[in-house]
């Protein structure tokens, strides 16, 4: 049995750890709430834009001929990997990374084993994963903060569209942890490019014949990049919400485990202490009767 002093040291160490995990749990849970609110607040925009695009794709044939929408034979692909910057969030990042690796395997199976796949990392965990596994990293965006700015999203979108338009990738996917609930986050894969017109919503009557101002081409040329931006912005917010949720849960588990361990150790400590006292008494009794 370990000495009482040894056990006391361990108890103190675990108390210190508990303080840290408990503090992190609180921080994560308040940030989680804000991140969740932001995800919900941003949803109407992407929903409206998606609906608008589906109404338009029904009536404008030339929409499908735009460079960002035209399908090309697949000779190369790119994967945008959206992950959090920080750790201490359980298996969240590794799940997303694994999904991305799996996607790469699927793509190679479908389009040939030597299909070149380049990666664009948004978030440090994904960047580290790509570097560690020696994949081709073409761009990285880290430290975007808790409130990603639209200008950051624009920069990311520009890199992605350039990659596509310069024929460096004929297919672009995005992998991110979708926020379902505080305890559930699922790695999700979306196709970014070529843009797939969203499925037509069921609406009564024929698609409206729009008056375009200034003209259809100009509007589509502005609409599509905006659509791609939301396809990046929304996952970014989802990732943040997922991250803080996962971190909160991970830290709560850590605190619970530490508390349990603390109980066990305290028990062992008291037993050891009592045993020591008993031995001492026995020694004294033995000494006096001698």
């Amino acid at each position, binding site marked *: 049995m370990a000495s009482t002093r040894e056990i006391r040291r361990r108890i103190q160490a675990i108390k210190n750890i508990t303080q840290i995990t408990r503090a992190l749990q609180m921080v994560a849970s308040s940030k989680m709430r804000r991140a969740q609110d*932001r995800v919900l*607040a*941003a949803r*109407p*925009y*992407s929903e*409206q*834009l998606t609906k*608008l695009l589906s*109404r*338009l794709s029904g009536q404008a044939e030339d929409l499908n001929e735009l460079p960002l929408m035209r399908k090309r034979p697949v000779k190369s692909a790119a994967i945008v990997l959206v992950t959090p910057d920080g750790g201490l969030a359980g298996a969240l990042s590794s799940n997303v990374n694994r999904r991305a690796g799996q996607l790469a395997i699927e793509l190679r199976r479908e389009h040939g084993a030597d299909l070149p796949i380049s990666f664009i990392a948004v978030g440090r965990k994904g960047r580290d994963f790509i570097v560690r596994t020696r994949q081709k990293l073409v761009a990285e965006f880290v430290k975007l903060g808790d409130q990603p700015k*639209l*200008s950051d999203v624009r920069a990311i979108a520009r890199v992605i569209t350039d990659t596509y338009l310069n024929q460096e990738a004929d297919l672009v996917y995005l992998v991110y942890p979708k926020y379902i609930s505080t305890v559930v986050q699922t790695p999700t894969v979306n196709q970014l490019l070529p843009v797939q017109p969203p499925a037509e919503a069921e609406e009564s009557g024929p698609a*409206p*014949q*729009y*008056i*375009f*101002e*200034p003209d259809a081409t*100009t*509007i589509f040329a*502005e*609409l599509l990049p*905006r659509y791609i*931006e*939301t396809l990046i*912005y929304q996952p970014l917010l989802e990732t943040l919400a997922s991250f803080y949720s996962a971190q909160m849960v991970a830290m709560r588990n850590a605190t619970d485990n530490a508390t349990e361990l603390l109980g066990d150790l305290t028990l062992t400590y008291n037993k050891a202490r009592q045993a020591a006292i008993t031995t001492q008494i026995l020694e004294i009794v033995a000494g006096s009767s001698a």
Partner: protein
Amino acid sequence: MSQRPTLHVTIVTAQQTVFEGEAEMVIAPGSEGQLGILPRHAPLLTTLALGEMRIRQSGVDEGLFVAGGFLEVNNDIVTVLADDAERAEDIDVAHAEEARRRAEAALQQRGLSADAQSSAFGELERAVGRLKVAELHRTRVGHRRRPPRELED
């Protein structure tokens, strides 16, 4: 009066929903010029410029600042997907003044990259636009002491 058709107006930005409600008329800064939209307007899709948008509810105009984006009219539903939007009454004038000063200072610097310059210019445009909309809002609220004129049928 209650039989009149109204427009259902939704204004959203990438961050949040800014306005949602019924209106009798919408005046918006289209990229090709000011647009007035009344109920039963033909389906329309236009890009937006930077400026003031007005929404008329029971004869009273509510002002909003919008910058860029799209406006769609379909079936008496007006949807605005704005790059930036704010209700006039929510505009923080001190904050906008500060943004204007910062943008102006940034533009004064020499050897600014083209990117930085255009972003500072965008900041400046938005700050000035915000201030203008806030100003218009203040004068309009001042006028509102008199009862609003009834719309004639």
